[in-house]
């Protein structure tokens, strides 16, 4: 407390005037943060209580089942779970090299600082584009591209299960490409901030030992920042899993099990967005079950990402 340096006693008029206000403010802050935690608990409770009839009725078979036929009250989400996982992984596979390269470029002094600022700003703006706009862009740009080149891919590499034809425009691949762009800002921003916090002494040490810039980047800076980069990927993965609108518009919404990237697929969030409005009876509970799975998955992924990020910040702080 800065006030402590001023020689005033406990009965000082200054303190008597300020203390109640500080407490009031503290109270509001406490309440607000408590409410946020409570909100998460309430959401989880609501989702799980609505999902309970389906959990009770379908049990684990819901997760391993491969058919989703509401008209027959058969609900299995395995193809959708796989679609969610693969589309997000694929998106990460595209976005990580690109995002990391951008982050490195922006954290080093290849360009004058003002230009770097502008590039950084533009990339972070990608995060401000609404999901539905990405979806529309995907429909008009990415779908025709995948339609055109997917066919060639299926012809040439069709013997691999992942490129098996026929190639659809609305496919897992299309959704993944657009998802990659959507998670790019997450990867770039977090990676860049960890790269920037790599202590300058380490670079200087590396240069002093005669390492070139690339040797320094690959041998010193990247390994030091690695946990932060991993954390950025995990957070990006979490975001990709929960992404709804753009995916629903591009993935082809098919609940069939297929290993081909060129075939339509589905994700949990897209399934929910598509079917909630007209669902009734046990289908609502089944969708809630799917929602509960999605919440659990994204919570786990985000907690893992946060944990690693915390850990990194601690270790780099020690180095500094």
């Amino acid at each position: 407390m800065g006030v402590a340096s001023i020689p005033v006693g406990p009965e000082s008029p200054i303190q008597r005037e300020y203390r109640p206000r500080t407490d009031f403010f503290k109270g509001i802050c406490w309440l607000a943060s408590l409410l946020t935690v409570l909100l998460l608990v309430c959401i989880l409770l609501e989702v799980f209580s609505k999902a309970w009839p389906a959990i009770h009725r379908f049990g684990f078979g819901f997760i391993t089942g491969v058919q989703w036929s509401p008209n027959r009250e058969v609900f299995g989400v395995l193809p959708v779970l796989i679609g969610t996982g693969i589309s997000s992984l694929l998106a990460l596979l595209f976005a990580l090299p690109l995002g990391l390269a951008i982050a490195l470029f922006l954290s080093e002094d290849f360009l004058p600082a003002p230009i770097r600022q502008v590039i950084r700003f533009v990339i972070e703006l990608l995060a401000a584009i609404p999901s539905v706009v990405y979806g529309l862009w995907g429909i008009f740009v990415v779908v025709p591209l995948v339609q055109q080149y997917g066919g060639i891919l299926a012809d040439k590499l069709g013997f691999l299960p992942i490129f098996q034809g026929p190639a659809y425009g609305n496919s897992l691949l299309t959704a993944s490409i657009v998802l990659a762009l959507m998670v790019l800002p997450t990867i770039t921003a977090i990676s860049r901030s960890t790269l920037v916090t790599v202590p300058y002494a380490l670079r200087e040490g590396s240069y002093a030992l005669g390492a070139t810039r690339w040797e320094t980047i690959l041998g010193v800076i990247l390994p030091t920042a690695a946990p932060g980069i991993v954390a950025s990927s995990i957070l990006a993965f979490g975001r990709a899993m929960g992404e709804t609108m753009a995916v629903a518009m591009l993935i082809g919404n098919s609940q069939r099990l297929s290993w081909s990237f060129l075939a339509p697929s589905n994700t949990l969030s897209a399934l929910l967005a598509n079917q909630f409005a007209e669902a009734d009876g046990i289908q609502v509970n089944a969708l809630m079950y799917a929602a509960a799975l999605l919440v659990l998955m994204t919570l786990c992924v985000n907690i893992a990402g946060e944990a690693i990020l915390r850990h990194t910040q601690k270790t780099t702080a020690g180095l500094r």
Partner: protein
Amino acid sequence: MNAPTNLKQLCLAAVAFAAASIQMHASTTINGSGSSFAAPIIIRWGIDFQKAHPETRINYQSVGSGAGITQFIQNITDFGASDVAMSDEEIAKVGGNVLLLPATAGTIVFAYNIPGISTGLKLSRAAYIGILLGTVKSWNDPLIAKDNTDLKLPNLPITVVSRSDGSGTTGVFTAHLSAVSADFKAQVGSGKSVTWPVGVAGKGNEGVTALIKQTPGAIGYVEFGYAANNKLSMASPQNKAGNFITPTIESGAITLASVTLPENFRAFITDPEGANDYPIASFSWLLVKKSYPSADKAAAVKAFVAYGLTTGQSVAPELGYITLPDSVVKKVLAALETVK
């Protein structure tokens, strides 16, 4: 995650509130929700009706047939609209206090995108069932080609486009297909939301339309009005009598004219038998209460529905719907009279 329904209710409440605050001018407000298929014509009726009767306000929310029935049961709305008639269970939930009134009708068409072939494609029953079950994979398949000797069908893979969201359109369409083919009934079945063995799916009529337009070799099912407005190519399916029927307002009207309505108006046209009947058609029902809590409301609902059934039918063709036959209108109006 109750958000979608709650949000909808909230919106509805907000609309109702906004409407209530203008009630100094409008004395009665009727709220309805349901079928997105019938939404264009119901909203049009609402606008036209309000011009003639400024004292009544009509709000209609296009939330989908299933949600429309749910909201009607929950007493959130004064009337509902649905492409599938209410089930006995659902009717029991409102204590039987509901009348199902056919208000408009439409047909469902096979819309396709084959480069170079914009009209004249004929699909036999075996062909369209085969396409939808995934056994017919290419447009030059002999099963399709034998009825289309005048067309040069390309060697192009067929992409089936279906609805990803639950919808009355899918319900009517799959009911027809299940009536036509035992294989389809066994493999897919009928319902508002089914699992298709092949193809991609889009959300809503507009999503399906976009997919068809964009994918060479695509075929999908949409409402006639939607296909006509978006200038999609429509195939002529084979009806039960064996004839290939071009989807038009007229061929749809022929189907409707041949339907005999039961007392409760729940007629399902799964596979009409007339020689010139278009095979896939359905009524859209308005759900109204048999008795309303206030006489004002009952009078307003009656006046509105009566308007839709009489004057309102004249806008049906321009919006892509089928005008109800006079015999049907007469019966429905008589039933409407009993609303209190």
